């Protein structure tokens, strides 16, 4: 990696830490940065103190911290998956949503919401919130698998077919999700809408610990695909000729992407634009070498989502805006600006 790229990664990491600190402090209940440090240091030292049951302590450790951590995880997952999927599709406009992962996840989640009280009552009692998470996860996996199978020609996945199949599956899942809104009750409809627009509001220590392995492992795994993804830019044939096993690379990247994106959709709903915009910006800053792009997109994705979450909590406080709305509102102008200046 070049020196410039290392500096960018360092800079992004510092920004993430700063944004994370601000995000821990801001919200309906304000905690000064000094107090955050105090509370954090105190947590590390065993021994009782009057601080333990203070409101500040509870807001920080019960409400804010899981939420900020979830934002970082989800943002990292969306950022790195976007970068990797753009790499294998050889297209800077590709997005995990493009091959149906997000829409499949959302369809299954909406199915669970709509039929929870009728079909899954016993399951729902046992699994609670995990039912929705697993539903979304299964949906993501099934659509990715379906799209992948359709794209196979003589045992090799064809990227263009995969893209077209993804668009078709997106259309189908969108239609079915739309249909569900007709059978849903008023209360279910609110849940569905809120969920389709994305939110980190459901963050608890349980949900954070449930998705952590499903996000951290794929994100880390993606970092090993920098070199193979670079050769994809030359065309799949040249990648093959350079000794990369392109079929395996595609299978791995799609599997890891599905895991990471499926897990994040499961806990936070659909959050658009991060997977598309973050890798693009990262490339504009430090070049297209995927060994840099994958790592930088992970950190920047985490930063952007944490920042969007702060805005969603503070812009119209005490009302909370859906985070998907924030990322789209912020993302669209930035994206159009990039498009126009690059033209």
């Amino acid at each position: 990696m070049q020196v410039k790229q290392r500096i960018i990664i360092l800079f992004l990491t510092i920004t993430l830490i700063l944004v994370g600190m601000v995000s821990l402090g801001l919200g309906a209940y304000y905690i000064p940065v000094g107090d955050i440090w105090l509370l954090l240091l105190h947590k590390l030292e065993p021994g009782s103190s009057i601080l333990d049951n203070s409101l500040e302590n509870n807001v920080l450790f019960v409400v804010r911290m899981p939420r900020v951590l979830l934002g970082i995880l989800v943002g990292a997952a969306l950022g790195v998956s976007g970068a990797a999927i753009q790499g294998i599709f050889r297209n800077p406009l590709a997005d995990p949503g493009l091959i149906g992962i997000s829409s499949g996840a959302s369809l299954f989640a909406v199915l669970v919401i709509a039929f929870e009280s009728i079909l899954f009552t016993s399951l729902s009692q046992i699994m609670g919130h995990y039912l929705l998470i697993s539903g979304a996860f299964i949906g993501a996996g099934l659509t990715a698998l379906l799209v992948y199978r359709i794209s196979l020609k003589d045992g090799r996945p064809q990227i263009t077919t995969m893209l077209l199949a993804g668009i078709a599956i997106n259309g189908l899942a969108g239609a079915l999700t739309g249909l569900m809104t007709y059978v849903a009750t008023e209360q279910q409809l609110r849940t569905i809408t809120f969920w389709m627009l994305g939110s980190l509001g459901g963050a608890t220590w349980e949900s954070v610990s449930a998705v952590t392995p499903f996000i951290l492992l794929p994100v880390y795994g993606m970092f090993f695909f920098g070199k193979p993804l670079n050769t994809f830019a030359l065309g799949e044939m040249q990648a093959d000729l350079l000794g990369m096993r392109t079929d395996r690379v595609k299978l791995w990247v799609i599997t890891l992407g599905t895991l990471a994106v499926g897990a994040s959709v499961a806990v936070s709903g659909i959050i658009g634009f991060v997977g598309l915009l973050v890798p693009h910006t990262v490339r504009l800053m430090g070049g297209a070498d995927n060994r840099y792009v994958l790592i930088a997109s992970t950190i920047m994705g985490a930063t952007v989502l944490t920042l969007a979450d702060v805005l969603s909590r503070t812009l119209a406080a005490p009302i909370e805006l859906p985070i998907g709305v924030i990322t789209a509102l912020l993302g669209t102008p930035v994206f159009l600006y990039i498009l126009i200046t690059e033209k």
Partner: protein
Amino acid sequence: MLRVEKLNYEVKGRKLLKDISLQVRKGEIVVLLGSNGAGKSTLMRLLSGDRRPNSGIISLNGQSLMKLDPRALAKCRALLTQQQQVSLSFKVSEIVLMGRYPHFTSAPQMEDVAIVDEVMALCGITQFSDRIYMSLSGGEQQRVQLARVLVQVWDNPDSLLLLDEPISALDMHYQQKVLAIAKGLSRKGYMVVLIVHDLNFAANYADRIVMLKHGRKLFDGTPNEVLNTKNIYTVFSVEAQVDMNPKTLRPCIKLEEMLLEEWSTPHII
């Protein structure tokens, strides 16, 4: 040595290559000639191991191409294709370095960097090193791709170098220079297979010429043996006058003006 025996290849029932046998010896430069769609590029892809033949044997230095591990193969065979698009905004130096990817795991070694520098200078692209590949002209892009393919096998003279129309977008100077590089490499021991369309370039640079038509090998021999009026007419359907260049003792081909028969009778309106 590259040995090809009774190669057959078909796609969706269309027979693209029929019963092709040929050999390329170490240190030899072979030029494939034939009209558009004769099967030259298809043959190149099969020789590279990227496509499997329906029947027949391809062996490189005594080993079957199919049995070689992709990465081991990448270190002893390189193919320059006609398709030279690059997606995403990679820099020229990054593209050329990709040719060394089979040789290192995470970071390029001193040797890799030295080879990249040497080959970039040879191909005249050092000054474009930091430019975005997509912003270069067609001829410059072709030289970048050639450099990438050359660095891939630069340190292994037992390699097979396959160049599919490497000079199609180049100016006169670089057309000659690239062919000189190809010939120079063959003298170091490389097996070079080349596709060009200019018969005089073929006559001047080839050790041997293989002429294809409709997926079959029609003629195979030294330029003096195969480049004659009759063979050229058989393969390309053009009238050519073939002389001997007294300086090089190689054939020198002059094409005669072609007249369109269907337009030759004056129309009376």
